[in-house]
């Protein structure tokens, strides 16, 4: 299972009334690679991810091309883009069990209750969470919740992985661990990954190119 298509952004422009956040940004992320976008809060880096995912709402005005291989994502509704996104909060669904959360994420292409359960249990076991399926998400530690959130996204077989400061809320010891967990998975699945952060350590751990959004690009 490999996405094997690069993510390309061409001439992305994001503005608020009276203020241009991103004048023109173009970049490419190869399958399995991580590009880090850095900048102070308010520079438009989260808006960039929201634009790629299709969630950017007024008063933001945005344009530019988002493609996976030959596929134009920006012309599709958010739910049809295959843009898996991880936020700072894990947003596990509180009414479903851990396995329920993963089965919710798991692509519907895999049919039947038993095979779906099996797929979820395997994913949990590989992530060192074997036997956690029936647990209430609220009973998990922060690090465990973060891993479940990533698994949920990966099981939906996204075309691209968007990371919106997903390490920010974890304490330092866990952060290191979870970063490796995320980047290893993204690499082995060949997912082009776009990471947004203000923490230079995240960028170093990602190992890929870094784009700074501060100052010149933002001035209109």
């Amino acid at each position: 299972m490999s996405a094997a298509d690069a993510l390309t952004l061409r001439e992305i422009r994001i503005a608020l009334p009276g203020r241009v956040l991103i004048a023109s940004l173009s970049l490419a992320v190869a399958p399995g690679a991580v590009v880090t976008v850095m900048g102070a809060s308010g520079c438009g880096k989260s808006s960039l991810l929201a634009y790629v995912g299709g969630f950017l709402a007024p008063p933001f005005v945005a344009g530019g091309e988002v493609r996976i291989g030959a596929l134009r994502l920006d012309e599709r509704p958010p739910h049809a883009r295959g843009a898996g996104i991880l936020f700072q909060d894990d947003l596990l669904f509180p009414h479903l069990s851990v396995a329920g959360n993963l089965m919710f994420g798991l692509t519907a292409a895999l049919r039947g209750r038993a095979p779906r359960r099996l797929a979820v249990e395997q994913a949990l076991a590989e992530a060192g969470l074997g036997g956690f399926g029936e647990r209430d998400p609220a009973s998990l530690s922060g690090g465990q919740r973060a891993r479940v959130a990533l698994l949920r996204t990966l099981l939906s077989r996204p075309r691209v992985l968007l990371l919106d400061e997903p390490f920010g809320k974890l304490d330092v010891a866990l952060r290191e661990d979870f970063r490796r967990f995320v980047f290893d998975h993204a690499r082995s699945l060949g997912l082009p990954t776009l990471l947004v952060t203000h923490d230079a350590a995240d960028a170093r751990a990602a190992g890929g190119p870094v784009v700074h959004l501060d100052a010149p690009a933002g001035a209109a």
Partner: protein
Amino acid sequence: MAPGSRAWAAAPAATLAVFLLPVVAGTVGTLLPALNHLPALGALGWSLDPWRTLAAQPGLARSVQLSLQIGLLATALSLAIATSWVAWAGERRASRWLAGLVAPLIATPHVALAIGLAFVIAPSGWLVRAVSPALTGWSRPPTDLVTVRDPWGAAMVLGLILKEVPYLLLMLGSALHQVPHRALLRSGVALGYRPATAWFKLVYPSVHAQLRLPVYAVLAFSMSSVDVGLILAPGNPPPLAVLAARWFADYDLQRYFPAAAAAVLQGLLVLGALVAWRLGEAVAAVLGRRWCERGRRAGVPVPASRAGAGLGAACLVLGTSAWTAMALWSVARTWRYAQVLPDAWGLATWAEQGPRVAATVATTASLALASATLALALCIACLEAEVRRRHVPSARVLWLLYVPLLVPQIAFLYGFQVVLVRLGWDGHWGAVTWAHLVFVLPYVFLSMADPWRALDPRYARTAAALGVTPWGVLWRLRLPMLLKPLAVAFATGCAVSVGLYLPTLFAGAGRVATLTTEAVTLASGADRRIMGVYTFLQSALPLAAYALALALPALRWRHRRDMA
């Protein structure tokens, strides 16, 4: 512990007593005559005779069936329509102006909407006029068409939905405030779910618990509403609650006994329906979880979600047009069939009805102001007691607030009247105010409790550190800072009071006339122009209260941006 905290402990107890005593005493007072015990009428023998008389009533089974059918259908449809509307409307801009129709519909009493709807859907009504005779060829109103008071209760279901959908929309709105619904929706969509599907699979489960009690209140009301039933439900046989009310109003006092039995039966019926609904919820929860785990990205088919949303929009538009039609009637001189608008306009009806209406408005307004003021004072005392005693009651107490909304009115108001007669208070303005308070208080409390509890406690601590006494904190900080939610809660109380029918009728012993009791009386065949005057005022009064509630704080704090 702070001095005087004992006295504060009495506030919640006194409040509960004031508004639950009538319910408890009233239920007992209905139960006794249902067992043939009513000393005032010389009946002292315990027996099941009232039940035998009730059982022998022809059409009783049909009355019971109508009550269940109307209640369950109206509740299920209202919930389905309200949720579909929110799932679809979400952030759409097109839905904004329709959302603006919700607030006036909330303020409009059931009776006013029911009377308006009766005109809109009548064979000679607005809908038929809009397409006649051009499309239908009906140059006269069709006589064989039964659209109001139809034997299936469909008109009543529709009338209830028009009022309950806006109410559930309001409740959904405040429940959504307390959950990260945007983030839930976004993470569902990011996993490839269509927005409406993601809403039902992720957002609805997170607000279901908060919506539970309001939905139960809708179910209890829809099953047992007498006022809407008198206007829109079939008359022979009528729904059970209407049957009981009819017997209670009979000149033959012996009718009281089977009436009490019918009222108790209505109570049991509602209890049974609530239990059944709860079990249904449990089953739905299991099926819902399976549904989520199957992972289908288009679980709610697009046409179904559009249809639900369309019905939501239709409800808001129909409710508004029901109200508008009656307002037009009040200024119509003549409005013949097939004319979509009145042929001749004029204020004659207003001039003619003026003096009588003025007295009724005065009574209605005085009851509303008195019951809302008392409710506000009691709620402030309860919430201030929470602060002083540093103790917030558990969520279970919320159930007590809902008691008057879950017990059918007919099941305790007659018994309450018996108690009032004993005390020699029946028919007095004060007794009616008390009866209104029973229903006004829960809504006032629900409306103001969240903003009160959400006020940052550090304001009070800062003030205390500056040497301000607890009373000073209440008067100089808490009440002014909460002026807007308190004013809105007060207006909500007024709106509830204006719409009350059965409590006014029973506690007032038929001698206290409000806009709502008059409107129900007029609905059975009076001049539509006069009905128009009454229904217009019925909604105008609560709307004026809401308008003031929003305008006064805005005026008071016009130079304080953070108080907006």
